[in-house]
């Protein structure tokens, strides 16, 4: 059932009454400032709004309705209570510029959140302001630059990234005015140390790594890597998107990382919201502490205070108008308090258990696991190259066919170095039944790839639309609704 674009439901003059004041007086502004034509917004009743958006919501796959093993994204259950408590009036209605004296409840939560994040990373200090992973990366690389600059080391403008890295890593390097130097991965999934040794030098600002990597394996030579980079005068950046895998089991600080971001919307289960919001809090060791983005929450006796540029003159500054995604931080705080220390270890335990179980099941069923000799971290990769070669059914076809099995597709074609790959992350909140059903679906699709490939090429057929014409979308741009007449 498709749903009209909301403008098509519109009827001139219709309104949802009661949501705006009665007719206010005309503005006391001269006409030159004033808009001549009303903007085109839908003119609909409240029921129409409810029905339209409720129906639209039903067109989505989501964690709340489907298994969603999207690798690298940690699509785990978002406890409902986190949202409920973050929306309490005392939090939701607090103006960001309310004086600290009227914000002690919030600040106390944030102070404790900083402490907990220190504990799970081993870092020395935390700033909560980055609003997503990529902004955390920005903050991290900017701090690395600032550190080198502060030491008069102006030439360090190269950021090393493994070829398996998430796209945000090289893009961040560019945003920070650095260049990204790619180094290869060895067939066993670990970084090629020789290549690394060749890459480092006096221009090296640092390296960005995620561990476990986006290949779903733990980088075993991490201590050696740290040694090489540090010896070359560079710093180590930890992309914390995969922290879920090692929560309570290993600390990035112990691995030699100088700075880390954490995607709270992954490991600490704040909403994905169809694209966001998230939070990319950063942690640093003592070296980088002076450069942390502000504001940071401090403590002054039994009062909690904001620390700003005044307190942190070397700070890279602010990254958001106010203090980051406050409400998301609250959700993560609630989630962490629910889990507690033991709960955090259970997270990594079950995330890893589920991933390894599913990987073994698929391997046993004849799927090509990318790193069959390795333990999976909380995610793993299968390559469908053989099936693609034999049947023409590629990874994207598998992805689409899975939708007809009521399962969201894993991440496809990422990381780039494994051909025809699916990056599968079941997360700790899924049951064995779901994993088994998923394995069965993949097996069935593979069988059908051989017996009836056209059916798979035609998938999905149970979704609200079937495969979309992306080329047309990009060529005949239709990016905003206009009435037929226009």
């Amino acid at each position, binding site marked *: 059932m498709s*749903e009209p674009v909301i403008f098509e439901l519109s009827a001139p003059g219709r*309104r*949802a009454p009661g*949501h*705006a004041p009665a007719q206010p*007086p*005309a503005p006391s502004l001269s006409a030159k400032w004033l*808009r001549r034509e009303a903007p085109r*917004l*839908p*003119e609909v009743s*409240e029921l129409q709004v*409810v029905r339209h*958006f*409720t129906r639209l919501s*039903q067109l989505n*796959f989501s964690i709340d309705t489907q298994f969603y093993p*999207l690798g690298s994204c940690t699509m785990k259950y978002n406890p409902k*209570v986190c949202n409920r408590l973050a929306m309490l009036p*005392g939090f*939701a209605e607090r103006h960001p510029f309310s004086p600290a*004296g009227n914000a002690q409840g*919030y600040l106390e939560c944030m102070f404790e959140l900083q402490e907990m994040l220190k504990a*799970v990373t081993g870092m020395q200090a935390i700033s909560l302001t980055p*609003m*997503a*992973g990529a902004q955390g990366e920005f903050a991290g690389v900017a701090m690395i630059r600032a550190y080198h600059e502060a030491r008069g080391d102006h030439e360090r403008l190269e950021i090393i990234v493994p070829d398996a890295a998430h*796209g*945000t890593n090289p893009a961040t390097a560019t945003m920070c005015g650095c260049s990204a130097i790619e180094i290869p991965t060895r067939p066993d999934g670990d970084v090629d140390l020789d290549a690394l040794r060749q890459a480092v030098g006096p221009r090296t600002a640092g390296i960005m790594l995620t561990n476990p990597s986006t290949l779903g394996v733990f980088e*075993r030579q991490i201590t050696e890597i740290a040694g090489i980079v540090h010896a070359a005068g560079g710093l180590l950046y930890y992309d914390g998107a995969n922290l879920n895998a*090692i929560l309570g*089991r*290993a600390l990035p600080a*112990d691995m030699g990382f100088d700075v880390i971001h954490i995607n709270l919307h992954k490991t600490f289960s704040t909403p994905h*919201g169809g*694209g966001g*919001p998230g939070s990319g809090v950063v942690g640093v060791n003592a070296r980088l502490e002076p450069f942390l983005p502000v504001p940071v929450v401090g403590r002054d006796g039994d009062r909690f205070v904001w620390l700003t540029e005044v307190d942190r003159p070397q700070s890279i*500054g*602010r990254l*958001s108008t106010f203090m980051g*995604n*406050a409400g998301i931080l609250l959700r993560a705080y609630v989630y962490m*308090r*629910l889990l*507690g*220390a033991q709960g955090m270890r259970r997270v990594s335990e079950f995330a890893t258990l589920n991933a390894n179980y599913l990987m073994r099941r698929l391997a046993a069923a004849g799927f090509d696991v990318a790193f069959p000799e390795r333990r999976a971290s909380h995610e793993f990769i299968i390559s469908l190259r053989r099936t693609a070669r034999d049947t023409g059914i590629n990874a994207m076809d598998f*992805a689409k066919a899975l*939708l007809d099995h009521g399962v*969201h*597709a894993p991440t496809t074609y990422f990381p780039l170095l494994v051909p025809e790959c699916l990056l599968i992350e079941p997360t700790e909140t899924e049951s064995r039944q779901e994993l088994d059903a998923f394995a069965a679906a993949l097996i069935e699709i593979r069988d059908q790839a051989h017996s009836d490939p056209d059916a798979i090429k035609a998938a999905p057929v149970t979704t*609200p639309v079937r*495969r*979309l*014409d992306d080329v047309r979308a*990009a060529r005949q*741009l*239709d*990016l*905003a*609704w206009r009435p037929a007449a226009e």
Partner: protein
Amino acid sequence: MLRVIGVDDTEQLFDEIPAALRIDKFDAVPAGLGEADVTRLMRARAAQDEGTVSFIGAGAYEHHIPAVVWDIATRGEFYSAYTPYQAEASQGTLQVIYEYQSMMASLTGLDVSNASLYDGATAFAEACLMAVRGNRRSKSRQILVSRSVHPLYRAVARGIVAGQGIELVELPLGDGRTDVAALEALDGQDFAAVCLQQPTFIGTLDDVDTLTDRAHANGRFVIAICNPTSLAILRPPGDWGEQGADIACGEGQPLGIPVSGGGPYFGYMVCRSAIVRQMPGRIVGRTVDVDGKPGFTLTLQAREQHIRRSKATSNICTNQGLMVTAATIYLSVLGSEGLRRTALQCHANTRRLAGALGAIDGVSVVFDEFFHEAVVQFDRPVAPLIAALAEQNILAGYDLAADYPELGQALLVCATEMRSAADIDAYAAALQSVMHDSEAA
């Protein structure tokens, strides 16, 4: 499950982590609490911060949010979905974004909106980067930014663009608005863009037509920063001057997002079609499926980091999707008439507030024409007054001393449609008595 994997216990699953890095005990965070206990804790914390009556705007505005907005936006299917990479499984989110893009395009009078950036300040920073990339007529890495732009937007943008060697050059204020003469004095110099905020940070209204035309005459882009509520009644950036602004951006929070301590909000960005390939962030397009049925999909992804990596227009990945869903619902419930009335009522309330405060001895309202924020000057330092009123749970406004010393001892106040006449009168009365006390002391 362990048997299938071939291990004896779950500890073995971590055996690739070098022993020296493994921690066997983790107790550095408090023990877990039950939901009832966490609820009790958070309710107590939230209660501490509750009950203020706020007259602060300064970039975050308390508006009525229809209950329907968050009731629907927090439905699990919206709340717990990821970025709509699998279009067939994400038509709900994709259509919402398409509708959002449509609404924002019409509100701003421009062509193409993206699916959100983090917040107003970062949207502004991205707009600066975009202008430098997109302005073919300029080779400059300098951008003119009016001092009337939100001081924190300027600070954030400065930090973000600095890495790429881009510099923000300040255009001064003259009589509470961007000084046209100062811009004229720069005629002939190469700048990638001119950035204007309308209404200005201090609530006044710039002569955007003249400024825009002058910028364009000099081959500069115009970046417009606008409060979206104001666009219900103010001329949209697409209508400024002869050609309209090139990029509009700003804070989406007023559109149905609670002030919520500063976030999550969302940055919006809309531009002319000609420069859409320089736009950061996701964009949704309408297309058809293999059966010819209309549907929605992410498009122009070659701008994005997951495709273009180091050559992407931005590193942004996770954005503020859910906020955009809420804003789309908000705009649908209000419609243009509802939004217009909201804007007008804020305007009227702030006029009332300015009148009430200005009537107090030692207080004067400085500028005449403003939207929903006004500058109030005092015969004494503002900070102690703010502190005294905060103790009475009245949040008096935003202290301008640090950012605009040229305005003297000044406070920026705002009364949205949520402030009743009684609230306003109570504020004026409290201020009067606080000022009286401070004299007495």
